[in-house]
Structure formats: C-alpha cells, structure tokens
C-alpha cells in the first residue's frame, strides 16, 4: 500500500516536473516570438518606422506667395488677391469631429446642402484630416465666429488669398483665369497649412504664370496628435510674384464688350507703331471670377456647356477666311513690283471667265462695276479685278505676299492658344494629294478658298500695312514690376522691318480712306480724321465650289481700319460671326473711344 502510494506520488511529481518544463519551454517560445517581432519592427524596419514617426510629428506648411497683380495701361487693377477666411474642422477622431459638428450646427448656420456633403466627407475622413466647413466666410459670419469662440480647437479659421478680377467679363479674354491647385505631393493631403497655389489657365495668367506666381515658402512645423502646432523649425519665406502692367486699356475693353453684346466675334485694337494691343475681345466672353467663386458656379456651368463656347478665344483661335480684307495687300504688292501700273484697268461685266472655260467667277455685284482700276477695285471691293490680278500674280507670289503679312504663322502674341490659320500653297495642296488648280489661285485672290486667318493675324497684317511695313510683334504686356526691383523692367519689342513703297502705299491708302466715304464701307460714315478701312465678307462655303452649304446662316463680316498718320497709333480689326454689322460695331467703338479720349 505504502509502496504503491509512494510510486504513484513519485510518478505524479515526475509528470508534473515534465509539464512545468513544457510550460517553461512554451513561454520561452512565446518570448522568442515577441523578440523576433520586435527585431522585425525595431531593427529591420527601424529606419522606415523612425521616418514614419518623424512624418507624424513634422508637417510642412506652404507659405502662400502673393500672386502678382495685373494692371492695365492706366494702372487700373484687372487681377488682384483678396483675403478670404474659411472655417475648418480638424478631425482628431471621427466621433469627436461629429460631436464638434453637432455642437457647431447649433451655434452657426450651415447650409443644409453643404452640411450633408460635410457629413459624407466625415464618414470617409481619417484621423488628422481637416474638413472645410464653410468656405469664404462673410464678415458677419467671421464676427459671429470670433464672438462665439468658434475659432478654437478643433475648429480653425484659415485665411487664404483668393484671386479676384475686378474688371470681370470685359477683360476675361486678356487676363485669363487661374485654377486653384495643390502641388502633386500635397494633392491628397487635406492639410490646411498647405495652401493651394494658383496656376494660370488662360490669358496673361497662363502665359506669364511663372512671373506672376513667385515662389511659395515652406515652414516646417512640429505638431502633436491633436494637430496642435508645437514649434516652427525652419522657414523659407515666400517670394511674391511680379506685377504685370498691360498695354490693354480697360476702358476700351468695356466699350468693346458693350458694343459686342449679343454678338459672336472678335475685336482687336492695336497700335501699329509698337505692336501694343490696346483691346482684345472675343464675344461672348466670360467672367474669370466664375472659376474661383462658388457663388458663380451657375455661370461657370454655362461657360462649359454653352454652344457659343465663351471659353474659346475667337480672337486668337478662331480661323476664318479673310475675304476682301486682303485686297489692299495684293494690290500694293502688284504696284510695288510693277506687275500692274496705277493706270491698269479692266472692264467688269459682273463676272470673270477663265480662258473661255465653263468656270465663271462672279463679282459680288452681279451687274458689274464697268471700268475698274486699282483704287476703284479697293473702294468697291471689286472681285473681278482681283480675279485678274490673282492670275497675274500666281499662287506662289500671293502666298509670298500673305506670308509677309504674317498669315499662316504665329504672330508671337504673348497670349496662349494662338492658332496659325491656313496659308495655302502648291506644296500644301500637294501634300494633301491634290494638285493646285487655277481656280484655287483665282479665289485665293479674293481671300477665299482654303485661306484662313485668325482675327489677331488680320489685326497684325492691318498693323503692318498701317505702319508701312514695319512689323511689331503684337503683345499685351507692357512691363513687369518685380517686387525686388525698384524700377519696372520694360519688355523689348522685337521688330521685323520691311518697307512698302511710300508712293504706292499712299495710293492704296487713299482708296481705303474712300471705302468709308462712298465705297463698301459707306455705312460707316465720315470721321474727322483720315481713316483708312477695308471691309470683308467671309462667305460660308458658298463660293468655295462645294455644293452643299448652310443657307440659314449669314456670312461673317470683317472690318479692318486705321487712322492714317505718320506714326499710326490706332488700328482696329472686327470680326462679326454670321453677322454683317462688323462695320457698325467698329464705328460705335471708335465713337465711344473718341468721346473717352477727348474728355
């Protein structure tokens, strides 16, 4: 009995000994698992996680650099920055943010539509995110917020400079607009300390984006998990952008906008003596504020969807046949190169027939103009004369003439989106697998056919003609005013000089002066100063030899003119799409402008 008990006891003690050993082994194993996990975290990914801990506590804030202002030639502000304030909510945890939001709703009015959006965003928010509760606080709201102490954690009032365009719609085509964007690396971040910088999307804002935007500064901040800023560690100050002074006259822009109301088309007013653009307008235009001000979002929607395409800058990108406006250029060249003499004349019976073929090219006046010389051809815009001249010149010479006036190539204007138009040549047509026909030559002589120009190109050609061959690259920026420099940095205007024979130039110009007296532009009426002009009617496919055409739409009308002076300073080019009133628009603009300048 005692023996069995004893052996039983010994057995049990031995068994227990083994089991405890197993338990010890089990815990040693568990500890090794923990140590291996710690080794993995601390030794293997120690560096990475150390950087993660730095990322946690250090954050970068960008210091918004002030974008430069845009001023017109008289110092009127066309684009500036106005301070705005937003109400932001820091998300420490979703539950806390939700409580704070509920509390906030009782104390300040939040638009129910934006509230539901905020709530949706809150559902997706992660800790450390920031939600914008109200953007663009009104001064009343701002006062209310500070009065109720709503600017305290977790809420925050974030100041921001917003781009604003006081001139609005009339200057939209020139100033362009900006879009708020974040740098790529910050794009996903909701950090309110990283302010959006603007990038120019059109107009001067785009072409001079770098000059205007300056360089944003950077601050490194240390923060805690609640987003409280503990200290500023380093600071690279922001460099403000430069101000830009335009050659544009905002008053004239407004006049043009007013006269072009309800029309489609483009107006360019430039100074032939130095290439300055005084006014540039594409109708319909747009208000650049719509891209930044949420309250104008309905206008923005119209801009994006309207069939009239307000965002399309017709002055730079619209391509149209120049039509009869090219006639003075060809006539002058022909006289200059002695291909015709001032005495050269034809008899116009209303049409032109090429070498007894069936191809008949009609004058716009079916009755014909009888005996027509160069001056009469320009005054009455006689087509038959220019069919003859076209044959005398030939396509190669005509292409050369058009090229001298800048057709088919960029004018070099300092605005984005310029189209090149189309200057047809033999080789161009050959490249398209067709051979040049005599008919092509004939209609190119009246600015029809494949020839296409943009309004700015025609304005440039008009200016070259007005300046007797001196070509100045058209530009809208007069000078750039850097914040670090005391004086304005003037821009140099590169010139391309040519010379047009003075005598023949005057001969043609005299004819152009008569255009508005008793020629095709007689509806324009007299002016008290010598004014040379030429009209044009860009036919819609009708005369291009194709059968189908759109009868409902009327032709585009062109008007180009300039004050004849030793140093011409005012040239105007007007295009009215599907409208024959370009001439009236031009007259009204000139009237208003003369009133303005005489006061």
């Amino acid at each position, binding site marked *: 009995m*005692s023996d069995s*008990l*004893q052996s039983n*006891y*010994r057995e*049990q*003690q031995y*068994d*227990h*000994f083994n*089991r*405890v*050993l197993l*338990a*010890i082994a089990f*815990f*040693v194993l*568990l*500890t090794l*698992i*923990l*140590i291996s*996990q*710690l*080794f993995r*975290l*601390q*030794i293997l*990914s*120690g*560096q*990475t*996680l*150390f950087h*993660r*801990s730095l990322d*946690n*506590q250090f954050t970068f804030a960008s210091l918004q650099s002030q974008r430069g202002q845009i001023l017109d030639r008289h110092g009127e502000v066309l684009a500036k920055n106005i301070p705005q304030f937003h109400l932001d909510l820091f998300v420490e*945890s*979703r539950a806390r943010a939700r409580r704070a939001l509920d509390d906030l709703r009782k104390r300040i009015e939040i638009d129910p539509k934006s509230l539901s959006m905020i709530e949706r965003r809150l559902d997706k928010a*992660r*800790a450390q995110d920031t939600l914008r509760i109200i953007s663009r606080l009104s001064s009343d709201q701002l006062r209310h917020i500070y009065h109720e102490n709503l600017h305290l954690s977790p809420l925050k009032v974030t100041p921001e400079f917003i781009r604003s365009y006081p001139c609005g719609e009339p200057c939209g085509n020139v100033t362009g607009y900006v879009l708020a964007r974040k740098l790529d690396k910050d794009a996903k971040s909701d950090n309110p300390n990283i302010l959006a910088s603007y990038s120019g999307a059109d107009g001067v804002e785009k072409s001079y984006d770098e000059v205007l935007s300056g360089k944003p500064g950077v601050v490194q901040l*240390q*923060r*805690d*998990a*609640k987003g409280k800023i*503990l200290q500023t560690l380093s600071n690279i100050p922001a460099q403000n952008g430069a101000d830009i002074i335009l050659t544009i006259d905002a008053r004239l822009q407004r006049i043009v906008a007013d006269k072009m109301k309800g029309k489609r088309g483009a107006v360019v007013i430039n100074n032939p003596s130095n290439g300055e653009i005084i006014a540039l307008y594409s109708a319909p235009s747009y208000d650049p504020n719509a891209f930044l001000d949420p309250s104008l979002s309905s206008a923005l929607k119209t801009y994006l969807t309207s069939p009239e395409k307000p965002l399309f800058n017709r002055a730079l990108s619209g391509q149209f046949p120049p039509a009869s406006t090219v006639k003075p250029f060809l006539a002058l060249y022909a006289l200059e190169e002695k291909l015709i003499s001032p005495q050269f004349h034809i008899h116009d019976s209303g049409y032109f027939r090429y070498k007894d073929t069936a191809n008949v090219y009609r004058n716009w006046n079916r009755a014909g103009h009888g005996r027509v010389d160069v001056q009469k051809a320009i005054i009455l815009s006689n087509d038959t004369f220019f069919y003859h001249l076209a044959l005398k010149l030939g396509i190669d010479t005509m292409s050369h003439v058009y090229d001298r006036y800048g057709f088919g190539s960029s004018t070099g204007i300092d605005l984005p989106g310029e189209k090149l138009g189309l200057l047809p040549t033999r080789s161009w047509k050959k490249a398209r697998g067709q051979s040049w026909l005599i008919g092509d030559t004939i209609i190119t002589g009246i600015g029809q056919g494949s020839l296409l120009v943009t309004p700015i190109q025609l304005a440039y050609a008009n200016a070259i003609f007005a300046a007797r061959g001196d070509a100045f690259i058209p530009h809208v920026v007069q000078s750039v005013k850097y914040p670090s420099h005391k004086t304005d940095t003037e821009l140099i205007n590169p010139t391309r000089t040519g010379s047009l024979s003075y005598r023949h130039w005057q001969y043609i110009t005299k004819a152009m002066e008569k255009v508005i007296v008793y020629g095709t532009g007689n509806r324009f009426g007299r002016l008290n100063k010598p004014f040379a002009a030429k009209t044009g009617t860009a036919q819609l496919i009708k005369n291009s030899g194709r059968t189908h055409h759109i009868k409902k739409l009327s032709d585009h009308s062109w008007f180009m003119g300039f004050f004849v002076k030793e140093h011409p300073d005012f040239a105007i080019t007007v295009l009215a799409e599907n409208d024959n009133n370009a001439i009236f628009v031009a007259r009204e603009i000139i009237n208003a402008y003369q009133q303005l300048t005489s006061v």
Partner: protein
Amino acid sequence: MYHILIQSQHDSGTQHMLSTSKLGNQEHVSLNTLLCVYIVIGMLLLTSASEGNHYMVIKQGVHALLAVGILFAVQRMSCEHLQKVAFIAYLATIALLILVLLIGHTGKGAQRWLDLRFIRFEPSEIMKVILPVTLASCVQNQELPLSPLALLQNLLLVLLPFMLIAKQPDLGTATIIATIGIFTLIMAGLPFKLIRYGITAFVVMSPVSWTLLHEYQKKRIMTLLMPRQDVSGSGYHIMQSKIAIGSGGFFGKGWFYGTQSHLQFLPEHNTDFIFALLAEEFGFFGCCVLFALFLWILIKCFSYSMQAQNHFTRLACAGISFAFGICTFINVAMVTGLIPVVGIPLPLISYGGTTMLITLLGFGIINACRSQSRLFDS
C-alpha cells in the same frame, strides 16, 4: 497523506529535485527583489508616460506600496489557510461578477460596459489569480488522476466565471481566464491524449463554425474580442503603436524622448500600450532586458512549482505564473500587432491599481507556497 510527504524527503528518486530546491534556498536574488526591479521599471516608464502628471505617478506608487504590503502579508500565510480561504474568495468574486452584471443591466445599458473601466475591470482581474488557486485547492482534495466527475466539477468552476465575464461582454478577458483555468487543470495531470483531442477538436471546429456564422455575428464576436476599440479605429492605433516601437531602433530615443507617446500619437500610452513607450524610449535593448527579467521571474515561479510538495502548492504556483506570463505575452503581442487589440494591461507595468494589487497578491501566494516547500526541506 501527510506521511507520504514526509517519506518523500528520504526518497532517492527525487534527489535531483531536492538539489534544485537546495539551490533555491541559497538563491542570490530573491523573487521579491526581481519583482521590485520590475515594478521600478514600470514606475520609470510611467514617469515618462505621465508627462509631468505627478499625481498619476504618486498614485501608482501608492498602489505599488499597498500591493507590496499585500505581498508580504500573504506570503506569511500558511498554505492550509490559503487553501481554505480560496473557495470563499472564489465565491465572493463570482458574487462580484454577478453584481457587476446586475448593475450593468439596471444601469446605463450594455454600451456603458465598454467604457466603464472600473466596474468591468475589477472582478475579472481578481479572477485571474483566484481561479487557479481555487482549482488548486479543489484538486488537493481530489484523487489524482482526476476522475471524470471531478474533472467536470473543475471545468464548471472555470466555465462559471467565463460565462459571467463573456456576458459583460468581454470575450477577450473571459477567454484568457478560461485559458488560465484549463492550464491549471492540465498541470493537475490531465492526460495528454485528452488535451490533444481537445486541441484538435478546437482547431477543426473553429474555422467551420466561423464560416457558419453570419456577418453580423462575426462582427459581434470581433467586438466582443476587442471591447475597447471600435474595429475601424484600432487599425490606426496599432499602426501608431508599431511606429512607436519601430522608431525606437536598437537603443531607443532615450527616457522622456519618445515622440510618439509624448505627442499623443500613441493611444493609451500609460496603460495598455505602455510597452510601446518602453520600446520607443529604450529600444530593442530595453525590451530584451525586460523580457530577460520577465523570463527570470517566470522560470523562478515555475521552478517553485516543480519544488512544491503537494498538489495545491504545485498548481497554485503554476497557475498564477501562467496567468502572469500569458497576460504579459498577450499584451505585448497586441501592442506589437501580432494579435488583434484585446484590452489586457501589462502586469506590474501598466498604470492601474487593481492589476498591481492582484498580481502581487498572486506572487504573495507563490511565496507562501514556496515557504511551505522550504519548511519541508529543512
């Protein structure tokens, strides 16, 4: 029974065990010294974690002094006395658990359970030590190997607190308590065959039963397993904890220089996640030192279980040691992201009075058991 124990002293078969126990008599570092070092380390970490909140450090210091007092009081008690008290303590704790449930139901509803730390915490913490002692005292009075009836009786003792705590609901703590109970029964000589069957059945059944559950039931179980965290929020916390640990590197950022904890990125950095603070400020090296100390304490306690002369002392030592060990492991595994977040504090280190008192009470019992064995040795 008593004469058997006396006889065993002269038994040559247990010679190797006696030699270990003799070695234990002459041990250079006592368990109490190790525990004090461990507690001091905890206090140092808490000083850093408290961020100048001296009240918190002093309070924990008072807790520690109280707990050491309890340790010394308990280690003077005789094992026979402890054995008798155990079952009464068990019943009292069960009563507390029921009370907790009642208050919970009449109170602010189930949601408050997850937030009300005090009420949820206390009785289940006590159970971590009381359960192995009670089981040990039961087994002491039973024949070994355990008869099926006795086994069933013991299992009921485990099941009762499990059910009560799971109902709170805190499946995590309930599971840990059940594990402690089952471990104690295994130590009581549960046949390995039965253990194998049990494990196999569990492993086979759990994925099958998991797939049978509905999505909302799974979610509910996940919430039960992780009472303190909402499932979506815990990912962020565990990531921050991992960043804290990893950023410590080999030697750490230095005492008081942990950015993750001091800038509040680390959640619960003075209670459940205090280990991450240790890892951040003292690095891999500091963690290894703590683990060495931990294993030293654990192996010492287990060796006391080996040297013990009766079932009660063996099982009480083993069970309490296991409770200490498993809680430490689960806490660290949770903080290092090995297992999902379960609200288990790090014994003797985390801020909190109850755990400190109860853990040292347990070590007091272990000391009492050991002095019993030493009595027999001399």
